[in-house]
């Protein structure tokens, strides 16, 4: 079932949680709402579910206006961040709840409900805990039961609020891939909220990035990562190095190097910021041309396939982060305290006006 969010705004007292937000989720699509805490992502999810009502704007489910429909009549499943399992009911009773509260006319027989619950428990690989209480389960198990409970009423849309937020790193990764597989199997539209960019980029078909109640960018994970719409999206989707500078008549001077920025050719000397990801910095022993910066190595962290380095620029005291391969580290024989030259392979320049569209520049 498709979801259309049309210019939704919501305020709590004086706090503007959502400012004129619009977003469409296609049939059987998995969309992540990504943003820092307080960005409005959970509020948006609750409005889709009918747990909150928007001040203005509307929610369309499958093309029909559902803004005034109650949460129970929208055909949505909701998985809460802290599971919200009924603590006085067994796992079995929890999953059966949605089926047992249906009006008598459409309610399934006891045997049918039992079968359906057991099928769902098998789907989440937890049929062996049916008689336990939520307090006797681990966090990951509770989350899967919460999911089975939401799926019991065959929702057309599944909404998940920080589904893996309270779990430890290993379980998170496991459940993440499992959710993706499950989504492909049952084929319902999914919207899930997260503040973890890695999670959003890994699991979803599309990502919507929110900040202070606005959607900053929507796109496929690769698209938003490679072409961030603005500095916020850029810095939110991974580590970045900042270079402050100025743009004048199509040329940006950031730090010691110059970049051609033809789309800013009409700009008359405005402040600008250049961004480079750690893996986009190239390190060398010798200065190569005028575009290199000199820096001192503060720390070398050689855990994992790549090596992370913390560097301090000699002129400006700014800290840089670089990521290079192990081979490169061996080749250069770098040690803490030594001097190196840093050259960004790629810098994206954003002028101080956020409405300008950024482009990528190969140096």
């Amino acid at each position, binding site marked *: 079932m498709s979801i259309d969010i049309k210019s939704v705004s919501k305020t709590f007292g004086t706090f503007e949680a959502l400012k004129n937000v619009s977003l469409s989720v296609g049939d059987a699509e998995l969309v992540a709402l990504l943003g820092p805490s307080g960005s409005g992502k959970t509020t948006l999810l609750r409005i889709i579910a009918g747990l909150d009502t928007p001040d203005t704007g509307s929610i369309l489910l499958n093309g029909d206006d559902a803004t005034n429909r109650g949460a129970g009549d929208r055909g949505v499943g909701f998985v809460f961040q802290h599971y919200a*399992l009924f*603590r006085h009911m067994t796992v079995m009773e929890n999953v059966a709840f949605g089926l047992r509260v249906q009006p008598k006319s459409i309610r399934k027989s006891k045997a049918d409900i039992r079968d359906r619950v057991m099928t769902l428990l098998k789907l989440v690989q937890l049929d062996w805990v049916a008689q336990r209480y939520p307090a006797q389960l681990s966090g990951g198990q509770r989350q899967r039961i919460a999911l089975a*409970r939401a799926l019991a009423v065959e929702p057309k849309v599944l909404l998940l609020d920080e589904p893996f937020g309270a779990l430890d790193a290993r379980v998170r990764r496991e459940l993440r891939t499992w959710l993706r597989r499950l989504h492909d199997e049952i084929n319902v539209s999914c919207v899930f909220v997260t503040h973890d960019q890695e999670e959003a980029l890994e699991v979803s078909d599309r990502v919507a990035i929110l900040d202070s109640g606005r959607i900053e960018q929507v796109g496929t994970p690769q698209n938003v990562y490679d072409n961030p719409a603005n500095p916020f999206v850029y810095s939110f989707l991974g580590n970045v190095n900042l270079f402050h500078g100025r743009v004048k008549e199509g040329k940006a001077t950031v730090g010691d190097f110059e970049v051609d920025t033809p789309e800013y050719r009409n700009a008359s000397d405005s402040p600008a910021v250049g961004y480079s990801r750690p893996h986009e910095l190239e390190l060398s022993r010798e200065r190569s041309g005028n575009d290199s910066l000199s820096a001192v190595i503060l720390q070398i962290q050689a855990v994992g396939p790549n090596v992370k380095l913390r560097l301090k620029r000699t002129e400006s005291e700014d800290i840089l982060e670089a990521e290079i391969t192990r081979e490169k580290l061996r080749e250069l024989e770098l040690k803490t305290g030594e001097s190196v030259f840093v050259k960004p392979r790629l810098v994206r320049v954003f002028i101080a006006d956020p409405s300008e569209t950024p482009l990528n520049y190969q140096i």
Partner: protein
Amino acid sequence: MESSQQRARAHSENPIVRYLLIGSALLFLAFFLVTPLLTVFIEAFDKGWDAYRAAIVEPDALSSIYLSLMAVAIAVPVNTLFGVAAAWSITKFDFIGKNILVTLVDIPFAVSPIISGLIFVLMFGAQGWIGPWLAEHDIRIIFAVPGIILATMFVTVPFVARELIPHMQAQGREEEEAALVLGATGLQTFFRVTLPNIRWSLMYGIILCTARAMGEFGAVAVVSGHIRGQTNTIPLHVEILYNEYNFVGAFAVASLLTLMAIVTLALKKIVEWKISE
């Protein structure tokens, strides 16, 4: 390991201080609680079992027991309904005037019981706001059973609500929201999700409410008029007997209240244990 040893040392550092503290606490309890409690039973049985029994089965005493039970039977269910409704609306919804409602619930705790009684005299009494209208229609509230029930209800308003609010606040709204999204109606949500979660806190509140409704003296004394066999509750009957120097009778009836208090305490303990479970 080290820290637990240190803690043990901190405790054993000065045994004299420890025994002094424990000793004075026990002495205080013995003097102010145990002795008076024992006195009630010693005085009640001063003239033997027959005198005790006679004091309780005497018609005026029975009528006071009946009246107290009736006040409890009406005040406790009404306040339970009100308490659940108030706690539910305060903890599950946001509305204007919520803080005022929380404060209002506490008023009976804050004002003296005598004032609570006087409020009803001023409202329904012969010189009160609607007293003359009531007199015209031959409805008696003050110096009659309705007044006693009203006064009892007033002083016991906070018990159930106060017990439920913190508990329901700690539980949050998520389980109710989960039930609603799953298609449950408001009533289904209340009876299948909310009520099972609060049942022991609710029991606790009801026990405290019952104990207070049985034992209330001040507010009831003001509205009752002390008509023997008609408007006397157990505490009021005890006072009358005592003022008439009928010590055996006074303490015999008082022992009923004391027994009830002990039963309440035991029930309370069981429920507390259930809650912590």
